[in-house]
Structures are given as structure tokens and as C-alpha cells.
């Protein structure tokens, strides 16, 4: 009967049981909500098709996408410099990059608000030029950018560091400038880290609440809407909005993962 002998490693088994608590907690929370929500399908559908809810989801995901696009442009060069150079004070720069991770999000929100409000250091001149951040879409993007930047920069930097510097050196001796070597060698070999960093940053951005409401209570992002619904209509209405958001996030992440599944597989090295 026993054609195979499996060796059960007691250490792995106990670790799995203990670690399983985290998985269990998440699954339990989701099931608990799903069961309640799915028991009232008509209400779920009316919530999911409510224009306020749809707007909030679109604003959230759109602003997150804008934040990531800005990060691709300004975060990528920073990640490269941090990956490839050693300079005095590099530790200080690295700490500055990590500041948004370390501080409470309300504090991040106040920092962003003070800088970009109508009378703020950057907000005032930009307001003159016609850009308004207070209670406006750009305010959401700026707040998201601030809190998600470290996730993008650190992830992409790690990708750049994994590309052997010898590749770049060879490319340069073959006639490529540093920029050409970056574009043709380093960037293609780091695609996966760039994609992962973008997804991480995007996820972080669409989950932001505290930093956003400081500068832009309106237009509602999904978190603001959930909080607003919770305080005005109670737990049932707000948890339905939350459930719709969960479904939307799941769908988005699954699509993203599927799309990027085979991206940059050549840097798979053991």
C-alpha cells in the first residue's frame, strides 16, 4: 500500500501550523465578510453600481496609477544612483527615502498638506500657475506619491543591484555610453523588479487614507467613502462598499499578475 515514503520534518510542520495563523486570520476575515455580503445580493449590486462608489474606485485606482507613472519617471533614476554609486552621505539619502515608511500616515498627510496647500511652500506658486491641490485630484496623487515612493525605489534599486556591474562594463567597452548601457542592459534585466515595485507602490497608494484626507477630502477616494459611509449610514452600508472594493482590488491584482507573469523571466538565476 505504501509505495512512497514521505519524511515529515517536525520543524517544517510546526512552522507551517504557527505560520498558518496569519493565513487563517486573513481568510477568516474575508469569509466572514463575504458570507454576510453574499446573503444580500440585491443590496450588493445596487451598491456596486452606485455612481458614488464607482467614481471613488475610479479616482482611487486612477490616482494610484498616476502616482506610479510619476514614480517610473523620477523614482527609476534615483534607484539607479543608489544601486550603482557610493558616496559620502549615502546612508542619509537612504534614510530620507525610507522616511514615509517610518512615520505615521497622518504625519505624512500633514507634511504633504503643509507643502502643497494653497499657502504652502510649493502649493502657493503652483496655485498661481493654476494647479490646485487642496480638495482636488492632484492632491490625492501627491499624497499617494509621497507614501508609496519608498516601496517603488527600494524594489527597483534591488533589481538594479542584481544586474552584475560586469554587464554594464562590457557594454561600455563595446561602445555604449552609460545611458545606453542602462537602457539596453540594466533596464531590460530589471523589468520584473520594476513591475513588482510598481504593483507594490500602486497597492500602497490605493490603500492610503490618512495622508489623503489631510489635503483632499474631496473627491472621495474609496477609503474616504468607506469612512464617510461608516459614520453616516453605519456598518452595513460601509462594509458593502468595502466588499466591492475588495472585489475590485482582487480583480485588478489578478489581471496585473497574469499580464506580467512572463515578463523578464531571463533574469531567473539560481
Amino acid at each position, binding site marked *: 500500500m505504501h509505495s512512497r515514503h514521505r519524511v515529515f520534518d517536525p520543524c517544517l510542520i510546526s512552522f507551517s501550523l504557527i505560520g498558518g495563523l496569519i493565513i487563517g486570520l486573513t481568510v477568516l476575515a474575508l469569509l466572514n465578510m463575504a458570507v454576510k455580503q453574499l446573503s444580500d445580493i440585491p443590496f450588493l449590486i445596487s451598491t456596486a453600481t452606485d455612481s458614488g462608489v464607482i467614481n471613488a474606485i475610479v479616482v482611487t485606482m486612477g490616482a494610484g496609477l498616476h502616482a506610479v507613472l510619476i514614480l517610473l519617471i523620477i523614482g527609476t533614476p534615483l534607484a539607479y544612483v543608489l544601486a550603482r554609486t557610493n558616496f559620502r552621505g549615502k546612508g542619509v539619502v537612504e534614510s530620507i527615502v525610507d522616511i514615509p515608511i517610518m512615520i505615521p500616515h497622518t504625519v505624512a498627510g500633514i507634511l504633504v498638506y503643509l507643502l502643497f496647500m494653497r499657502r504652502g511652500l510649493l502649493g502657493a506658486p503652483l496655485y498661481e500657475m493654476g494647479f490646485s491641490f487642496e480638495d482636488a485630484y492632484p492632491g490625492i496623487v501627491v499624497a499617494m506619491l509621497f507614501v508609496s515612493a519608498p516601496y517603488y525605489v527600494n524594489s527597483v534599486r534591488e533589481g538594479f543591484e542584481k544586474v*552584475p556591474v*560586469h*554587464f554594464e*562594463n*562590457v*557594454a*561600455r*567597452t*563595446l*561602445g*555604449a*555610453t*552609460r545611458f*545606453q548601457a542602462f537602457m*539596453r*542592459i540594466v533596464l*531590460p*534585466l530589471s523589468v520584473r523588479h520594476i513591475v513588482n515595485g510598481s504593483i507594490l507602490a500602486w497597492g500602497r497608494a490605493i490603500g492610503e487614507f490618512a495622508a489623503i484626507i489631510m489635503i483632499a477630502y474631496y473627491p472621495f477616494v474609496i477609503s474616504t467613502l468607506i469612512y464617510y459611509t461608516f459614520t453616516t449610514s453605519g456598518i452595513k452600508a460601509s462594509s458593502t462598499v468595502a466588499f466591492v472594493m475588495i472585489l475590485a482590488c482582487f480583480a485588478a491584482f489578478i489581471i496585473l499578475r497574469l499580464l506580467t507573469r512572463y515578463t*523578464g523571466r*531571463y*533574469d531567473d*538565476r539560481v
Partner: protein
Amino acid sequence: MIEFDKVSLRLGTFALKEVSLRIRLGDFYFILGPSGAGKTVLLEGIAGLHAPQSGRILLRGEDVAGIPPERRRISLVYQDYSLFPHMTVAKNIAFGLKMQKADRHTVERRVEDLLEAFGIGALRDRHPLTLSGGEQQRVAIARALAVEPDILLLDEPFSALDPVTKEKFIEDLREIHRTRDLTIVQVTHARDEAMRLATRVAVIIEGMLAAEGGVEEIFSAPETCDLARFMGIENILLGRIVSSSNHVVRVDTGAATIIAVSDLAEGMEVAACFRAEDVTLSFPGTPGSSARNTFEGTITAFTPLGPLMRVSIDCGFPLIATVLRDTVKEMGLSPGSRVSASVKASIIHLTASEQTITD
């Protein structure tokens, strides 16, 4: 062609200290040194990937400080080949030509020529990570030669190859050097590669230039005792010259007297160096050897070295000989056997030992 004028270059734990060298047009120049001696840094310095802290590097007679690697017309092949993993073999080879904005026709033709010359046409559309070490090596060299450099830098090119591939590749390199008008600079820690390919050799020990010269002088007549050791000379005996006449000296090592051909003066502290392969073994008392140095001793150990056998002998001082395995069998030698070891006086190289230098 390439000149180092008192170049000092520090990079992490590696450092070159005031190295001056002259590599001439057409040289197959070997830079020998133990691992971690700063050899790769030196090559990267020539390529322009690191700037020296002090001193000057001249290429083709010009100071190249401030000239970036992409404008130096030097190709570099690393030990790990560093093929671009996201490009096919053909694209790897074409990379440099594309960077130089060669037209498509030229790129295609040159890539075809190289694929054929290196016998890697069948690998054209493969990705580097699917290739064997020897195949990767050939692609790397082809890629380096595609831009038609006049200087080729090789960083330990044989270290990852199996012996058969290595043999073939040594021949290929000799051919490349001969037919393509190249100045090649190769760094390695393997002396046998240098003995077979080099036209000139520099030895770098602890970041400093320990010796520079032709292959013969570096290998057979090292200037210092340290160098002799690094060159793998097995027998190095310290002593003092007790008599000198007519180019023949007698060196007293305490345990033996060694006769050597040398012009060094009486009273000097010297090291007598000779290679294990220059020692011949016979049974004690058998006449016939013309060698002027004969030491009797007892065999203490055997170490097989392929077709050869390394024999350790206690002659009152330790002595090492290498002989054919067949010789060991024919003579019926075993640990404990008494033998006499002979070395010709003309083959022993005397170098001033450390003590004299510090005096």
C-alpha cells in the same frame, strides 16, 4: 601601446601601488599574480572603468584620463564572460556594432563572419544561459572582436573551462593573436598559461609590480626569492657564497654545498633556485651523470601529477623532484628508497636572498 606611469588605484580592498608598465604593440602580455592582487582592477583601469588616484595611463601614446570606456576602442572579456542574458548569441555579438551605429548590412555580415570563424553558427538564436562554458567563452570573444578593437583584455579566460576545452582555446587564442593584429593583455594566476602564450610577463604581488620582462627571464631567472616562490620554483635553498672562480660559485647552505654558474661575489647571501623537473634521480653509486651537484637522500613521499610523479626526498634538507611515473615504476622506488638526486650547475639560478636586500 599601453603605458602605466606610476599608477595607483584603490577600489575597495584592491589596490595598485605605483605600478609602471609598458605594453608594446602586438604583445601578448600576461599579468600574473595571486588571487586578490588587483589584477582585474588593473584591466578595468586600462578599459577606463576606474580612474587612477594618481599616475597616468597612456594608450597609443596619449594620456587617456577623462576618456570614457566607450571611446577607448578596447574590448574586455571577463572571467564569467558576462554575456547579456536577455539577448541571443547573434544579438550579443551584434551589440557593439549597433552601439557604433554600423549599418544593418555591415552588422549582419560581421556577425555571420564571427559566428563562422568561431564555429558557433548553430548557436545563433540560443540564449547565453543555455550554453556550455566553452560555448559562452567563444561567444564572449566573438562579441569582443566584433568591434575590431586593437587591444583585447582578458580576465582569467581559462579558469572556468574543462582541460580539453582549455587546450583547444589556448590554440585558438594564439591564432587570434597572430592573425588579427591584436595587442592582448591577459591577467591570470596560472603560470602554465603564461608560459605557453605570453610574449612578455608582469608579476603583480600585493598590488605592486614585482617583476616585468620576457617569459624566459621571469620564469627561469626570478629576481627575488618571493618571486621565485610565486613562480612555483619548488627548490629554493638559502645559503652563502663561499668561493667564486671562473663564473662558478660554491654555495654553503649549511646542509649541503651547491655548485652553480654565476658571477655573484663571494660572501653574498643567496637563494639557489631550481625546478623539480630539472632534478634527475638515479641509484646511489651509479656513475654516468655529468651534473656537478649530487645529493644522496631518502624518499619520503610521492604525489601523483598526471603522467608525472612528484617525489619528496630528504637529503639533509628537503628536495623535490618530478619524474615520469614510468621511471618510478622501472626503478622500483618507494618511500624509504635511497636515491641520488642530480642537478646541473648551469641550471641553478642564484638570486640575492631577502637578508642581503634588507642589509
